[in-house]
């Protein structure tokens, strides 16, 4: 008989004797079976977990590779856009120099808490709490924005508080333009809360829903280029101008903080035109 067969015979004898001994102790048989079973089950569970982790790792890796490729592509696009913008700035600077044009200095922004918002009544306004020590400053007519765009302008300030006339108020008017075509008009509030109207845009001008509307910097209060909203509908039934509805870029239902611009508006005397001259 070969050594291998003898080894098998030996193993069989040992197993049979162990089974026989276990059978003579039934109360311990369950424990012993568990001792044998638990490591095997643990081993199987560990192997299954390892396979699952490996598969998940491969999936994650594939997803990351895909995202990475997309981001690389996006970075290339942005780099190209950045280079184009730099080129345009250089060109503007070159053209501005002979004209003696001086760009206005960057305005300083003051962060203020929004303590009250009234965008339902006829007078749509908000009240801001200004930072300490700013009570002596002149805040009237200064622009107020949020991170999303124009909120309005200060109409009254007293002590630590300032009242802001929001862009949605029917008495508010902001010089605006369509970003895509640079066509200018005036944005006013409407009867409906949360809807603005872009007026004085002639029928010849091309306007499409989805066009971004930004400040034009022609009203003496708001600097150029701050988002006002997005065109939602355009009707051309009027005689000379489009009837354009604009959704404000600022969500008036979730106001918490706003920025008050420390820019000096054009004095009212200049804005009043002939009347001011007469005075």
């Amino acid at each position, binding site marked *: *008989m070969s050594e291998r067969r*003898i080894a098998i015979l030996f193993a069989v004898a040992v197993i049979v004797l162990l089974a026989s*001994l276990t059978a003579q102790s039934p109360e311990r048989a369950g424990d012993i079976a568990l001792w044998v079973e638990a490591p095997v089950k643990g081993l199987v569970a560990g192997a299954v977990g390892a396979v699952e982790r490996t598969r998940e790792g491969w999936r994650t890796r594939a997803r990351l590779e895909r995202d990475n490729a997309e981001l690389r592509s996006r970075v290339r696009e942005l780099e190209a856009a950045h280079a184009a913008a730099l080129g345009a700035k250089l060109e503007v600077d070159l053209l501005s120099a002979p004209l003696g044009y001086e760009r206005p200095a960057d305005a300083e922004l003051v962060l203020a808490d929004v303590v009250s918002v009234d965008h339902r009544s006829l007078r749509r306004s908000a009240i801001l709490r200004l930072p300490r020590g700013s009570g002596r400053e002149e805040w009237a007519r200064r622009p107020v924005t949020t991170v999303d765009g124009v909120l309005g302008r200060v109409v009254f300030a007293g002590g630590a508080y300032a009242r802001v006339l929001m862009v949605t108020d029917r008495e508010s008017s902001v010089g605006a333009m369509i970003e895509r075509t640079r066509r200018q008009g005036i944005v006013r509030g409407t009867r409906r809360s949360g809807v603005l109207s872009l007026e004085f845009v002639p029928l010849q001008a091309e306007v499409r829903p989805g066009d971004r509307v930004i400040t034009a910097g022609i009203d003496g209060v708001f600097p150029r280029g701050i988002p006002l909203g997005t065109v939602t509908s355009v009707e051309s039934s009027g005689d000379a101008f489009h009837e354009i509805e604009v959704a404000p870029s600022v969500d008036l239902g979730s106001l918490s903080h706003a920025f008050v611009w420390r820019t000096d508006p054009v004095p009212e005397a200049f804005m009043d035109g002939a009347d001011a001259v007469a005075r």
Partner: protein
Amino acid sequence: MPWPARLAAGLAAVSLVELLLAEVLPAAGDMVDLFVVLVVVAGLSGNSLHGVTGGLAAGLVQDTLATTPFGLHGLACCVVGYGAARLSQRVMTSQRTVAWLLMAVGALVHQAIVLGLLAVLEVGEFGGGTAVPLRVAATTAVGVPSLWLADRFKAWADERRTLKEGRTGLR
């Protein structure tokens, strides 16, 4: 004399001695495990098959005589017999130190298996603790001369057979 017959004779002799010791000198009967001696001798003087079958047979006979669960000594002796037979193929068993060592290791392994299984199965007691080293030492002390005697007996049997074959050849 064929190997099964020798094994049967050895088993009969060991059983007889164990029974006599249990009656006359119970302490000595408990101290020396003659079945382990027989198993180690069978394993060292034969091949692996002799080790397994000899160990199994000796163990089962011992189980019949003992009060422990049936199969306990059978398992322990089977392991010791097979281990001794496998070792005998790798070491020089004729050296005295090796013989001592193999006998001591065989007795120790037997004790370890028996005590371990009794503890795991919780089916009986077999006098553990300090009795183990004494039992191993006593079994080794009896086992080494037995191994020497077995070698002598084998040499004598071989010599006798050779002589017999020589005489037959002369005729």
